[in-house]
């Protein structure tokens, strides 16, 4: 027990210590000012700009920025789809994998361009090595970079005084060349050192110690694994994701995966504080998110360590179903809490086999969708709740709400409401629809309230762009492939469009000087208000659904 607490505490402490240096580095990357690093990265970046036909110093307004995001992502999605549909005829296919069917290829392309990494296929049997590289590893870079770019553009909007959000392509290039590529490369080599394969040779047939045959599948795994966690992507090379010993062979690779997931989302909050020239504001948002994270983490740790009463009576302590010996209860539970907080979606243990309240945790974190949150979008969702909080507090005292010296008015509130409401709509409506269709109900593995959780989890995971699953659900059906595919796309782009529109609108407003009557948003009081707002709105929206799923299951156990 105590060593488990130490494992968790040490991991989180390292993550905490990395926030400031990495956050400062992120500010540097996105400041567009000349730095010493330009000498290293400048030549390559200028070459990239020339190839793309982008003028480095040309800034975009919110409309142009959104257009660039949508166009580039659309083109990339088509490229991914094409690779998946044609993989049989393309090179790097030593195991002779067939083309992917259309509905599954749509689902997969939507999944990876939106940084969700929901997987209705299984990598070892469904993808060629080329697809793992071109259709999976490639969007892992661009989709996470897109999310961060949008978050940075939003921050520029609310902190600047013109509708100039920066240049999307420049942001994309700088994040990829200065952060994602170098870190992924180094981490990949460490992963190989620990045992993750990185090869272009096809599967090998082994004669086991008992004389049977075992076909060992492998491939360029390490280069996918490192960006998978750094970019909070989460899509596994193999079906069982980071539980698979080839993806996560040792406790140290597990540690690296967890630290990588937390690295950029948490640092971005610090960078936000620096960019708006109010670090306290960054920390006050960070504190609210941390409190929720720690409550969730504590819950899943305790539940998995305790196990279920029925098993306890048989003399079995804790819940090891779907977990791996090398990680044990604590590092499995920590992984679960982190992967859904940082909206990564990789798993090192099977969420479908968590205890009922243990499974409640990842579900609830994805529903709130703003506990750190991955690839920049998490910070945006957090700021959405900040705007909502100042609005509601403003109503209570009868003052026009302000945030960072700018009045929050009807237009911003309408856009914020859209961004806020789209999330529950995308979760609850398709879930209800699935329950109305007997053929979709047939996909459920575990009947009863656990089955409700399986379907609810799938759409929550899609809407939150998380990608983890209660994997008992047979999701590779046309209905789920198409509906979850659409949920992922809407979940991603509607809130991006709304948030950038808010940024554009706030950017042109004149600043209101702070006075004694100004409601301050960088105090512990505001942290508490923000926390309450997130929990109350989350509970009002999702409690009925959660009550039918994990809560009912827990009470009936």
């Amino acid at each position: 027990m105590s060593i488990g607490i130490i494992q968790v505490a040490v991991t989180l402490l390292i993550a905490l210590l990395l926030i400031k240096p990495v956050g400062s580095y992120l500010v540097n990357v996105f400041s567009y000012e000349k730095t010493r690093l330009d000498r290293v990265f400048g030549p390559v970046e200028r070459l990239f700009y020339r190839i793309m036909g982008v003028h480095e110093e040309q800034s975009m307004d919110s409309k142009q920025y959104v257009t660039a995001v949508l166009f580039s992502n659309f083109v990339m999605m088509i490229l991914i789809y094409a690779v998946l549909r044609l993989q049989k005829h393309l090179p790097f296919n030593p195991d002779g994998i067939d083309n992917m069917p259309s509905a599954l290829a749509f689902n997969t392309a939507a999944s990876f361009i939106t940084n969700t990494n929901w997987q209705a296929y299984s990598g070892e049997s469904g993808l060629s090595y080329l697809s793992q590289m071109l259709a999976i590893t490639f969007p892992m870079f661009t989709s996470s970079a897109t999310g961060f770019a949008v978050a940075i553009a939003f921050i520029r909007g609310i902190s600047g005084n013109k509708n100039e959000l920066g240049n999307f392509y420049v942001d994309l290039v700088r994040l990829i060349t200065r952060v994602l590529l170098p870190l992924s490369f180094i981490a990949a080599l460490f992963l190989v050192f620990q045992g993750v394969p990185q090869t272009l040779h096809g599967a090998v047939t082994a004669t086991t110690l008992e004389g049977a045959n075992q076909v060992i599948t492998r491939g360029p795994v390490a280069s996918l694994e490192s960006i998978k966690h750094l970019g909070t992507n989460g899509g596994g090379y193999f079906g069982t994701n980071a539980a698979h010993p080839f993806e996560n062979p040792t406790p140290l690779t597990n540690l690296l995966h967890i630290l990588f997931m937390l690295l950029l989302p948490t640092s971005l909050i610090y960078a936000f504080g620096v960019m708006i020239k109010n670090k306290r504001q960054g920390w006050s948002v960070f504190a609210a998110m941390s409190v929720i994270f720690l409550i969730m983490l504590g819950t899943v740790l305790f539940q998995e360590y305790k196990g279920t009463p029925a098993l306890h009576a048989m003399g079995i302590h804790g819940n090891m179903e779907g977990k791996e010996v090398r990680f044990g209860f604590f590092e499995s539970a920590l992984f679960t809490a982190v992967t859904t907080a940082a909206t990564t979606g990789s798993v090192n243990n099977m969420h479908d086999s968590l205890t009922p309240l243990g499974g409640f945790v990842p579900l609830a974190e994805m529903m709130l969708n703003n506990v750190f949150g991955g690839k920049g979008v998490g910070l945006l969702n957090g700021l959405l709740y900040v705007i909502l909080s100042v609005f509601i507090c403003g109503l209570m005292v009868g003052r026009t709400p302000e945030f960072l010296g700018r009045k929050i008015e009807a237009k911003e509130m309408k856009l914020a409401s859209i961004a806020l409401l789209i999330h529950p709509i995308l979760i609850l409506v398709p879930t209800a629809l699935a329950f109305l269709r007997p053929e979709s109900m047939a996909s459920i593995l575990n009947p009863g309230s656990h089955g409700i959780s399986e379907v609810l989890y799938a759409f929550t995971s899609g809407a939150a762009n998380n990608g983890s699953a209660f994997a008992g659900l047979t999701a590779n059906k046309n209905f789920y492939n198409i509906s979850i595919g659409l949920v992922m796309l809407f979940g991603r782009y509607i809130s991006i469009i709304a948030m950038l529109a808010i940024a554009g609108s706030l950017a042109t407003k004149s600043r209101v000087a702070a006075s004694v009557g100004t409601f301050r948003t960088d105090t512990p009081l505001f942290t508490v208000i923000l926390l309450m707002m997130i929990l109350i709105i989350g509970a009002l929206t999702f409690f009925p659904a959660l009550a039918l799923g994990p809560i009912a299951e827990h009470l009936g156990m």
Partner: protein
Amino acid sequence: MKSLYTAIRASILFMIVCGLLYPLLTTEVAQILFPFQAQGSLVEDNGKVKGSVLLAQAFTSPKLFHPRASAAEYDPTASAATNAAVASPDYIKSMKETVDAIKKENPSLQNKIPADLVTTSGSGFDPDLSPEAAKAQVPRIAKATGLSEQLLLSLIDKHTKGRQLGIFGEPRVNVFELNRDLLAQSK
């Protein structure tokens, strides 16, 4: 129109850089630095691949240590977990049967069943057992092979790995390596 053209050029550029150059460069360097791991940690005897240290194999003989149960039947071309709902009556029933079978095999186990011994792994290839789960199999193997329990216990101790850096992970025994050693002993 110009912005669409830029989007196309950017997409193709990143596809080549991140999707081709990066993984191929990583492969080259990894193959030079860590050729054994990069190929999948394969163990060979007389030029024949016997398996990967990292992947569990199906061991069914009573003379060998058995790895954790696998929903994939130890077939790496289709990794899988049970995804069983652990609070469901079906699961509890099947666990009762497993526990009873284990107790029959080793009557000394009564109120403390090693959890990993009776549950199915997440990956389908968990290469490890907890030392307790390995020790629980000792009476059966001793009976089947005629080797002393003491020797078997010392083999387990020899192959037990501690926590990494003294903190991370759980103590564990690699079943493949343990069985290889065991087979060498029985010869």
